[in-house]
């Protein structure tokens, strides 16, 4: 397909020190399957950036590749100025990365509070348990319930909440609105606004474009394991139609 690879604002971005995440020519493999074919994008400190695309475009794999959870990867992933291609998975989080997987990954054998307290603190400045309960009052009410008893919305809240405690300031969030009721999606939107106000950097893999559009600074569109387009929020209205064509929504 034809792509118009316009990159607004590319000029003032070249190897900027304020880049919290810079991905270059990222290839990723599961076994023999070659999933990512040279992904390039970057996220500046305090930005909220989305990865849009259809199912199978490689958005989830991009996040998993950043976390070093794929079988093999090549290229370059610089987090906070440090090349992490050879960093073992358990050291990635220590660079201040919080990962919220698509399947949410709530531990069924742990209760809500144990789930919340599980991820080790990676940096100072994380939210306290009280802050988190203030942000997610439902979780406070259900703090003694086993993880497997939570509703989908509560599980999603918990999956988000538990990476806020660790002090991570780069959040990788995978399909957090998937399958949730509109009222919960709205609550999650408010949480993201709060996190952004706190200066967090967010990479949001999202299917629900209407949810992502008002929150994000920039959007990257993925297809066939590549970024095919970058759209900043200010030109979004004029690109909306073309975007819908690509996303098939």
């Amino acid at each position, binding site marked *: 397909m034809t792509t118009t690879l316009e990159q607004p604002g590319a000029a003032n971005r070249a190897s900027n020190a304020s880049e919290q995440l810079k991905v270059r020519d990222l290839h990723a493999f599961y076994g023999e399957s070659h999933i990512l074919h040279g992904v390039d994008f970057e996220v500046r400190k305090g930005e909220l950036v989305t990865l849009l695309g259809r199912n199978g475009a490689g958005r989830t794999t991009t996040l998993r590749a950043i976390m070093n959870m794929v079988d093999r990867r090549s290229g370059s992933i610089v987090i906070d100025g440090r090349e992490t291609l050879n960093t073992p998975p*358990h050291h990635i989080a220590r660079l201040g990365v919080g990962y919220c997987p698509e399947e949410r990954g709530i531990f069924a*054998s*742990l209760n809500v509070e144990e789930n919340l307290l599980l991820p*080790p603190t990676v940096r100072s400045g994380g939210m306290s348990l009280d802050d988190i309960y203030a942000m997610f009052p439902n979780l406070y009410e259900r703090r003694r319930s086993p993880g497997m008893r939570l509703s989908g919305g509560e599980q999603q809240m918990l999956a988000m909440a538990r990476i806020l405690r660790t002090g991570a300031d780069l959040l990788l969030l995978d399909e957090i609105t998937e399958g949730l009721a509109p009222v919960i999606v709205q609550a999650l939107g408010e949480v993201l606004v709060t996190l952004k106000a706190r200066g967090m950097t967010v990479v949001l893999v999202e299917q629900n474009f209407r949810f992502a559009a008002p929150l994000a600074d920039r959007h990257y569109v993925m297809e066939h394991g590549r970024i095919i387009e970058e759209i900043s929020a200010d030109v979004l209205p004029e690109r909306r139609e073309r975007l819908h064509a690509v996303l098939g929504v």
Partner: protein
Amino acid sequence: MTTIFGIPLMVLFGQLLLGLINGAFYALLSLGLAVIFGLLKVINFAHGAQYMLGAFAALLGLEYLGLDYWLALLVVPLVVGALGILIERLLLRRIQHIDHLYGLLLTFGLALIFEGTLVNLFGVSGSSYPVPEVLAGGFNLGFMFLPTYRAWVLVAALVVCLFTWFMIERTRLGAYLRAGTENPKLMQAFGVNVPLLVTLTYGFGVALAAFAGVLAAPIYPVSPTMGSSLLIVVFAVVVIGGMGSILGAILTGLAMGLIEGLTKVFYPEAANTVIFLVMIVVLLLRPAGLFGKEA
């Protein structure tokens, strides 16, 4: 003499006690198996051999180094546990990314090597380990005679089982272990050093087996094959209790020991098979085991 169903009470209680002691060993060993299986997904066929190594290390320590029983109880699990750590780091880790059946085969091979080596060096007849002096003798409880050492075994095994349960179910490290059992990749993404957790877990499971071995040395003949015969029963116990359940492993171990003891009183011919009969019934009615989660 008092009797129940025509069985003298003394005989009944005596067999129940024997059953409980056996059950304490089943509990200790199946607990280690359950902990290892939970995180590594490997059925540790070397568990019986590691139990035997514990007993042998205590015996050889006493003969050649003058290592007394109490010290052996502390040192032997550490030494054999360290051997377990080496096994995990040098062997199991290399095959953890392929089918876990290979882990089973590898540990089975290790068990054969350990047993074979010791049979070659010491023969199969076995030797006895003296009961430590403090624990010699016994109490007359009126309805039965209770040897002190057996009472000690029961208490020590239960304390270690409960300590393990507490560590796993009630502490932060235990929460890591439980969460790692469910989703090790995500735990690693959170910054937990899962490979280290795996190594320590295997070492701990092996140390539990060695501890059971030292406890067993003064009651059972110490021979290179003492573990393999016990392990088959312990596997049945684990299947009955359900793989991966800590409390299930402990309770099932004790209960199976008691059932075996009772069978010895009422129908001795079935004593060696009763646990397997229970296993068949449980597998038919609750394939995930009594305490296991339905898959």
